[in-house]
């Protein structure tokens, strides 16, 4: 069963700005990989619970204690743009 992928929608969800040529390139490759991966659907998993994690983990709480965090200046130095102690980004909405 060929797998139908709305690749432009997936790329938008993943915030990847790809050209039409790139989209069709990845669409073809994903179809081949998903065709192989779809083998999981042939396995009878009735009454099988999904495993999200290999060890049976429970919440790992830590004590609510104040401890030093990373130095703000050092962290901001790695940002493409910062201002007044904040990360700086372009506007969320286009201005009219």
């Amino acid at each position, binding site marked *: 069963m060929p797998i139908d992928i709305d690749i432009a929608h997936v790329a938008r969800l993943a*915030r990847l700005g790809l050209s039409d040529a790139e989209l069709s390139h990845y669409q073809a*490759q994903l179809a081949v990989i998903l065709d192989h991966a*779809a*083998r*999981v659907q042939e396995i009878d998993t009735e009454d099988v619970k999904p495993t999200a994690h*290999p*060890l049976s983990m429970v919440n790992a709480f830590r004590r609510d204690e104040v401890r030093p965090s990373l130095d703000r200046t050092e962290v901001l130095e790695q940002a493409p743009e910062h201002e007044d102690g904040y990360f700086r980004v372009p*506007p969320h909405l286009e201005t009219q």
Partner: protein
Amino acid sequence: MSEYTLSGARTALRDGSVSARELIDAALDRAAKTEAELHAFLTLDHDGARLAADAADAEFAAGRDAGPLQGIPVAVKDNMVTRGIETTAASQILAGYVPPYDATAVARLKEQNAVIVGKTNMDEFAMGSSTENSAFGSSRNPWHTDRVPGGSSGGSAIAVAAGSAIVGLGSDTGGSIRQPAALCGVVGMKPTYGLVSRYGLIAFASSLDQIGPLTRTVEDSVTALEALAGHDPLDATSYRGDRPDFRTGLDGGVAGLRIGVVRELSGEGFDADVETAFRRTVDLLSEAGAEIVEVSLPSMETSLSAYYLIAPAECSANLARFDGVRYGSRHDGATVEEMMTATRADGFGQEVIRRILLGTYALSAGYYDAFYGQAQKVRTLVIRDFESAYRRVDALVSPTAPTTAFEIGSKTQDPLSMYLSDVCTIPSNLAGDPAISVPVGCDGDGLPIGFQIMAPALGEAVMFRVAHTVEQLVGFEQRPPMLEVWA
């Protein structure tokens, strides 16, 4: 001097026959002679390494000893953050990033006065099996420079094989320590999930990722794991029990042990030379007194499919953080969304984009149950298969990889064929179990072959015991032929 084992160097440092400074000078000299051909490193920290070596020598002179790694040159995969040393995970999107903190694994090395040689090349964000997916150029196999070193921890495997480090740190999500170890003729082990902290390991697939060592011998692997393992409150998935004893019984041999040969991990797709070396090693274990049992794990055949849904799904979530805001590169855009979509499309390489798209699709509305949900159920079946096998046997064995090192460029256009090279290593990641690769010979082209030993969670001691026995029985002492030229 560049070909010391860890245990050899450890003794030599303490009896005064070598200094930490001499070890690091030899390692850096070897790197200088080989980098043009092998490209194992993304960053060599000449000054920092020499300072650390001198400090280690001063500790020895003062009679202080922080443990077996003191003064030992270690190469660190570039997906572990290092304070003050550029860390890119071989991605253009992180070019120029200089972390303000150390990964816990790196901090542990430093506390024990190890000497960090530099940061090693890898497949971008650890996605790949050949180190060809690096944004900064592919690495080459020291046994044959037309071949890949394996991956994704290819640079660390090369550094150990070629003598530019005595220990390499790698990370293993689907075989990324064991497969390059096999292809480069060194020992590589993936610990039980949670034994080594993932804090500061740039996440690929968080439920699968685990840091582990690449070394020249099994005993060195034990020593390195002892140095790395331990609870870390900064990693919520870190194992909270007492650290298990990895070393007991190491020299005990295999007499009386039951060892299972996994039927599904052989046959079609496996090189004849790989199968021959594997069978010969199994025969040696049998002659040494192990009881060999053939074991069928039916879910092995589907585990690859499940992995290539689960790992991309987790990666698509983990890599959402690379958006041009807090670190790395940025492409300008009129809006924040334009900036992010341009930054990500430009900063990620093809394999990373492929996996983000795959994972996003598998998690998206309407497909979640059929793909991701079903893969998580298959994961349960893989775990059950292992549990049922370990009720009958102490350890399982298989080849580490179906083939020896393949030619550079031969699989880059066919992602699925590249994925198939992880078929033997992926199941242990899905189960969270430990596994190790030990070199057991070379094929007709003189390329190394790896033998994998798998054990139940926290069963490192029996895994190391079988691995150490294999190492003694096989007596693999070959070195890359080019070492004569580089020496």
